C-alpha cells in the first residue's frame, strides 16, 4: 500500500495553488513575471506556508526542472559555520545555465544559525548575489542579524484564517473520501490555531481511525500526538507539589518529545479555562507571556517551563492564604 503524508501530497506546487497569504503571493508572482527576485526573509509561525511559498516560487520560475536550480538546507540540522563556508558557497558560486541566471538557496529555520554562521552567510550573500538568491525562512526574524535583514526583502506570514483553513481541509477531505462533520473542522482549527501542517497531520491521523471525524476524534488524536497532560501538571503545581509537576513536565519533554511551545500554549488555555479568580488569570497571563518569550531566547525548555511551574506553585500558595 503506498503512503504519503498529506502535508506533502497536498502541498501546493505553484503559487496559484496557495490559498492564504494573498498579498505575499501577489508580490511573489510579480517576481516571477519579472524573472528576478531579491534575497528574501520569510518570517512567521509554523505551518503558515513559508517553505511552500519558497518552493512554489522556484517552481514557477524554473518550471518542472526547478529542483536543479534549487538547494534546500535546514539550519537546525546543519547550523555550523562550516556548512555555510563549504556547502552554501559551493552551491552559490556556480552560475546557473538557462534563462534565469541565478539559483535559489532556501535556508530553512535560519533563526537557528549561530551568529558566526550568519556573518559568514552575509559575506556569501554579497559576493554571489549575481549567481544565487537566498530565501531565509525563520519563525522569528529578530533572531537574524541586522546586516542580513537589511539585505533582504521581508515577508511576514501569519496564521491562516478560519476560512482559508477550512477551505484547504475540505479540499483534502473531498479528495481522500473522508467523512467529516463540520464540528471536526472547528475542533481542528481550535487546537491547531491556523497552523496548517499540524491541521493536516491531525486530519490524516484522525482519518486513519476509519470513521466519520467529529470533534471528539480530533481531540483524542491531539491528545495522543502530544500527550501534554497540562491540566494535571498545573493542578499538581498549584497544590504545592512542584517536584511532582516538574516530573510530569520532564516526561512530556523527554519521553514524549512534546514541544515546549505547545506546552506553554496549553497552559495558557488551561489557565483561562480554570476556575481561578479573574484577577489571577491576568496576573498569570503576564507570567506565561514572559516565560513564552524566554522560551525562545533560552537554551533549555524544561528550565524555562519549570520557572513557570514555580510561579504557579507560588500562586496556589497565595490563593490558599486568601490572597
Amino acid at each position, binding site marked *: *500500500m*503506498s*503512503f504519503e*503524508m498529506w*502535508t*506533502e501530497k497536498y*502541498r501546493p506546487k505553484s503559487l496559484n495553488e496557495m490559498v492564504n497569504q494573498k498579498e505575499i503571493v501577489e508580490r511573489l508572482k510579480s517576481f516571477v513575471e519579472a524573472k528576478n527576485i531579491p534575497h528574501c526573509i520569510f518570517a512567521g509561525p*509554523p505551518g503558515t506556508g513559508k*517553505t*511552500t511559498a519558497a*518552493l512554489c516560487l522556484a517552481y514557477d520560475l524554473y518550471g518542472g526542472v526547478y529542483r536543479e536550480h534549487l538547494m*534546500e538546507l*535546514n*539550519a*537546525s*540540522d546543519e547550523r555550523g559555520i562550516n556548512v555555510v563556508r563549504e556547502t552554501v558557497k559551493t552551491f552559490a558560486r556556480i552560475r546557473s545555465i538557462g534563462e534565469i541566471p541565478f539559483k535559489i538557496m532556501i535556508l*530553512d*529555520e535560519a533563526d537557528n544559525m*549561530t*551568529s558566526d554562521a550568519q556573518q559568514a552567510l552575509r559575506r556569501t550573500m554579497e559576493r554571489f548575489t549575481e549567481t544565487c538568491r537566498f530565501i531565509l525562512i525563520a519563525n522569528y526574524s529578530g*533572531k537574524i542579524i541586522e546586516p542580513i535583514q537589511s539585505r533582504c526583502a521581508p515577508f511576514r506570514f501569519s496564521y491562516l484564517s478560519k476560512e482559508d483553513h477550512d477551505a484547504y481541509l475540505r479540499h483534502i477531505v473531498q479528495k481522500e473520501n473522508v467523512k467529516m462533520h463540520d464540528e471536526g473542522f472547528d475542533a481542528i482549527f481550535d487546537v491547531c490555531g491556523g497552523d496548517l*501542517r499540524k491541521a493536516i*497531520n*491531525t486530519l*490524516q*491521523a484522525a482519518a*486513519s*481511525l*476509519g470513521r466519520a471525524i467529529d470533534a471528539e476524534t480530533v481531540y483524542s*488524536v491531539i491528545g495522543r*500526538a*502530544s500527550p501534554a497532560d497540562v491540566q494535571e501538571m498545573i493542578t499538581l503545581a498549584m497544590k*504545592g507539589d*512542584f*517536584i511532582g509537576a*516538574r516530573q510530569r513536565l*520532564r516526561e512530556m519533554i*523527554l*519521553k*514524549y*518529545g512534546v*514541544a515546549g511551545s505547545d506546552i506553554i500554549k496549553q497552559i495558557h488555555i488551561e489557565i483561562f479555562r480554570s476556575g481561578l479568580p479573574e484577577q489571577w488569570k491576568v496576573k498569570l497571563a503576564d507570567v506565561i507571556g514572559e*516565560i513564552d518569550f*524566554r522560551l525562545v*531566547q*533560552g*537554551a*533549555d525548555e*524544561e*528550565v*524555562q517551563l*519549570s*520557572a513557570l*511551574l*514555580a*510561579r504557579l*506553585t507560588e500562586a*496556589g*500558595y*497565595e490563593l490558599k492564604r486568601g490572597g
Partner: protein
Amino acid sequence: MYAAWTVKHKPQTLSDVVGNAEAIQKFTEWVKSWNKGVPKKRAAFLYGPPGVGKTVGVEALANDLKMELVEKNASDYRTAEAIQRFAGLASQYDTLFGGRRLILLDEMDGVTGTEDRGGVAAVTDIIKRAQCPIVLVANNAYDPRFSTLRGYCLLIEFKKPTVREVMKHLRKVCAGEGIDAEEEALKFITERSGRDVRSAVNDLQALAQGKKRLAYEDVAWLAQRDRKDVIFNVLRTIFYSKDCWEAKRAVDTADMDPDMLFQWIYENAPYQLTDPHDLAKAMDALSLADVYRGRIRTTQDWSLLRYVLDFMTAGVAMARERTKPSGWIPFRFPERIQWLSRTKAERDMRLAIGMKIRRKCHISSVRAVKEVLPYIKIIIENNPEMVAGIAKWLDLDETMVDYLAGGKKQM
C-alpha cells in the same frame, strides 16, 4: 513526604546500631549499674569520629531501657547560665511518671572559646552532683578543655565500624526503600565515606532515591577527583550563603563545568528551598541564567557566561528569604542526566527517523520528531498494515520499522 534517610532509617534498638559492640556493652553496663545506686563515675563520655553511632547509640539504649532521654546540644550550653537551667533535671533519677532519666549532652565539641570555659566548668559541677546518668558526646575527649571534666567521666571510645558493617546497614536501608543495590555500588559508597555511616547513608540517598536499582555505574562518577565533595560544597554555599560574592566565588573554586553545575542546582533547588516564594525566585534566577545560555549559543559570545553564573549562583543564593531551616537536606544527583542517558537509545532512534522524515517533509529532523512522528505513530497504530507503505515512502530500515510498529505500547 520527603525525609532524610539518616533519620528515617535510624536504628531504634541497640542491636541495630552499626558496629562498636564492645563500647556499647561497656556503656550499657554502666547505665544499668545506676539501678544499684549512684556509681563512682556519674557521667559517661562517648567519643570518636563523626558518624560512627555515638548519639544514635545513646538514643537506642534509652529506647531499649524505656528511659526518658533529655537531649541537649551545643546551643543549650553556650554559657554557664544556660547550663544551670537544666541542672535541676540532673538532680533526680526517677521521673514523675516512674521511668528513669538519662541526660545526653551532645556536640560537646561545640562548647568552644573562652566564654565557654565557664560552660565546661558548669557541666563538671552538674556531673559532680548528678543523681541520674549523664552522657557526654564529642569527637575528641582529649581536648585540653575537657581535662578536669574527664576525671569525672567514664571514657568510652567509639571506633569506625568495618566496611562490612557499614555495608550491612546500607543494605538494610536499601531493603527498606525497595532498592536493589549492587554490592559493588554499596562498597564504593562505604569506602568513599571513610566508614562514616551518616555520610554513607546521605550519599546513598543522594544517589539512589527514587530508583529501583543502584548499579556501580551510578556511583562510579564520584571517583573522579573527589567530585562529590567539590559539588556538595559548592551547592551548600550556593543554597545557604547570604552573600552574593561568596556564592559566586564558590564556582571559581569548584573548577567544574558550569553546565553540569547548573543541572545540580536546578535539580536541588526545590528540595532546598521549600517556601514557594523562595522557590519561585530561585527558579526565576535559573530561567534568566538559561536565557543567557541561549544567548551564548546564538551569539557564541562566551563573555556572557559571567551572567549565567551570576544568576545561577548569587541569584539562587538570594532567593532564600522565608524557607525555614530544617536541618541537613542531602543533595541529589541530577535525575535528568540519568534520564537522558537512559533514554538515549530511544532518542537516537527517533532522531534517525526524523532525518528520514526531513528529506520528505521539508522540516528539520528535530521538528520532524516533534511535529510529524507522533502522527505517523498514530496512523500506524490505527492501520498496522500501513507500516510497509510508510517504510517505503520514508526509506526506513528494519530497526526503525520495528520501533514504529512495536514501540506503541511503551509510548
